[in-house]
């Protein structure tokens, strides 16, 4: 089917296939070199947000579903990961798994409810459910309310890799990020991913072709929530804390911003977007009150000037259909 639609010639098509690979190689190389150039903790945090944005992008970019409640999966995964590591003394790998599983379950419940409606109603249902869980986090004893869960032990991975060591922690986060990233790439390029894109383009038509679109949408929703959870759970172990910031609605907005700035529906866009937003939050921190103003200005510029986002615009200039 792809071939019929594809106007590119064979040789250009291989170049196109390679451009993704080249970009991936550049990204991996940059992430390996970066800790020697800049501060590793910042990079680890940025990778967690990048994975979060990629997971979000899977839903909006490839199924066309705008979830405005992704903080729910990110934040609750980080709470459960932090709590299980601190209170139950679970090793980091199991703590991250606990967090991720929590997000998967939340995603299944929220998704099953939300996918029954489309457009703005879908967004509002996801937002409402996320806010419900936010208030639960404010009230519940184990989340520590305003104070959050602090001093989470990083522990030892598989019993022998001491994660207090920044280098070891960095490698673990890098592996988790790349695994999540490649999984998303695989999902997008599988037959399942093709169906998702068909739903994005024209859901009625996909139904007429015999696809049970509800099931596809639900599975995509759960996958997206789970990967967002993986990012949140990892972040809790890296930064050794979980707090209300990650579960509140501005976080859901921030991930939309990251994806938009980087490029909606592009594979590398969310990664770039996450890094751009985080660098802004850090580099502008000494400027005080200007952080939000500048962030707002960039968002406006992005929407007005390059609507495809940084990577989307770049791919368009270079005539690469997918980056």
């Amino acid at each position, binding site marked *: 089917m792809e071939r019929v639609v594809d106007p590119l010639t064979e040789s250009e098509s291989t170049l196109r296939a390679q451009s993704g690979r080249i970009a991936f190689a550049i990204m991996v190389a940059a992430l390996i070199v970066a800790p020697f150039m800049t501060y590793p903790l910042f990079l680890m*945090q940025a990778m967690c947000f990048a994975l979060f944005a990629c997971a979000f992008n899977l839903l909006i970019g490839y199924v066309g579903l705008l979830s405005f409640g992704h903080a729910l999966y990110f934040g609750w995964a980080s709470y459960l990961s932090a709590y299980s590591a601190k209170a139950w003394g679970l090793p980091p790998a199991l703590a991250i798994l606990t967090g991720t599983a929590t997000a998967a379950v939340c995603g299944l419940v929220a998704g099953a409810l939300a996918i029954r409606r489309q457009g703005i109603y879908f967004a509002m249902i996801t937002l409402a459910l996320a806010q419900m869980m936010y208030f639960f986090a404010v009230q519940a004893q184990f989340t520590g309310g*305003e*104070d*959050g869960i602090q*001093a989470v032990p990083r522990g030892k991975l598989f019993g022998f890799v001491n994660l207090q060591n920044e280098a070891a922690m960095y490698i673990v986060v890098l592996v988790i990020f790349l695994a999540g990233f490649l999984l998303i790439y695989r999902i997008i390029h599988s037959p399942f991913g093709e169906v998702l894109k068909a739903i994005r383009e024209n859901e009625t038509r996909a139904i007429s072709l015999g696809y049970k679109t509800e099931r596809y949408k639900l599975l995509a929703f759960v996958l997206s929530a789970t990967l967002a959870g993986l990012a949140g759970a990892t972040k809790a172990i890296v930064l050794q*804390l979980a707090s209300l910031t990650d579960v509140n609605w501005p976080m859901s907005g921030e991930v939309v911003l990251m994806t938009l700035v980087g490029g909606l529906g592009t594979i590398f866009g969310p990664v770039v977007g996450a890094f751009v937003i985080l660098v802004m939050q850090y580099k502008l921190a000494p400027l005080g009150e200007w952080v939000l103003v500048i962030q707002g200005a960039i968002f406006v510029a992005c929407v007005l000037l390059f609507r495809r986002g940084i990577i989307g615009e770049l791919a368009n200039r270079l005539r690469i259909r997918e980056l």
Partner: protein
Amino acid sequence: MKRFFALAALAVALTCGSAQAQNKTIKIGVLSDMSSLYAAIGGPGSVVAAKMAVEDSGVEKKGLKVEILSADHQNKPDIGASIVRHWIDVDHVDAVADTPTSSVALAVNQVVKEKNKVFLISGAGSSDLTGKACSPNSVHWTYDTWALAHGTGKAIVESGKKTWFFLTADYAFGHALERDTAAVVKANGGKVLGTVNVPFPATDFSSFLLQAQASKAQVIGLANAGGDTINAIKQAHEFGIVKGGQSLAGLLVFVTDVHSLGLETSQGLLFTTAYYWDRNDASRNFGKRFAKQHNGAMPTMVQAGVYSSVLAYLKTVAAMGGKADDGKAVMDKMKSKPIDDPLFGKVTIRQDGRAIHDMYLVEVKKPSESKGAWDYLNIRATIPAKEAFRPLNEGGCPLVKG
């Protein structure tokens, strides 16, 4: 002759050595909320206060260089913790100051302890900072929620207003404030006539205020903070609650809240503070100097706390010959003897990091009593240092033995 040269060389080497030690720059990072909720309480004003402390400490004349850095933690604990890690690892910051928002302060507290630097807490209120989460590297200088709730509760009951009704923000923080205040009210012979839990955050307090009014309690305790407190006070004014003879007690109120509400709305409000600019000559002098550098705004107790804690820190470091690398050693030295502070009076720092000083119960003036801008408060009672803070053995701090 040879001997002379050897001696001269030795002397030069020694002076160079000590000069080198003297030339070390002490770096203090002011980490605060620069742009939202708490910016007026700490924020840019805290940076001004820290710079004033550097001037007044006189350590620069003794050859120590001091540099003040600042950053906006945007009320996100992960950003706060990462900034502090970066400050310490890359910029070699020796002490972190201020830091409102308890979740951020608790995160920074961990980092500073791990890296063995010094944390001069002024803006954060959580009493856990000297309780479960206490650290040998931190001092909690200005106030905490226990001191405010307890101080306000006790002083008001002692003034003869014995019946209370609480409006409680319905989350852990609000319940903790209510619990601490209710306990002291009862212990001093007062009575709690009722409580109502208000969803957090709330904009409409009307039905809750009507319940409070109907209870006929003498005092309505506001177990909430920030925007909730401001909304509650505004609406209480609209219902004429204070004019009707009931008093409002704020359990977490700052002078800037009074400034933004205006005297007409907030008159009669009772609360506890660690610093008020118009208390004595030293505080007036500091307040006026500060206001000149900060758009005419008088310092809050948090900003005054940043000033005093940085001042005490710098004096200690200077007394130690400029060696600030070992944060715990500096902290131990600060704890070793009482500090005579221009703003807070006699301050002692306890084992758990709690700075002990007098607190003041204040009442907001009527508009007719005020002589001009920032003339807002009457001091009603002084809460002596001994009684102002949570007893050492009740906090659950692991550093406290026995």
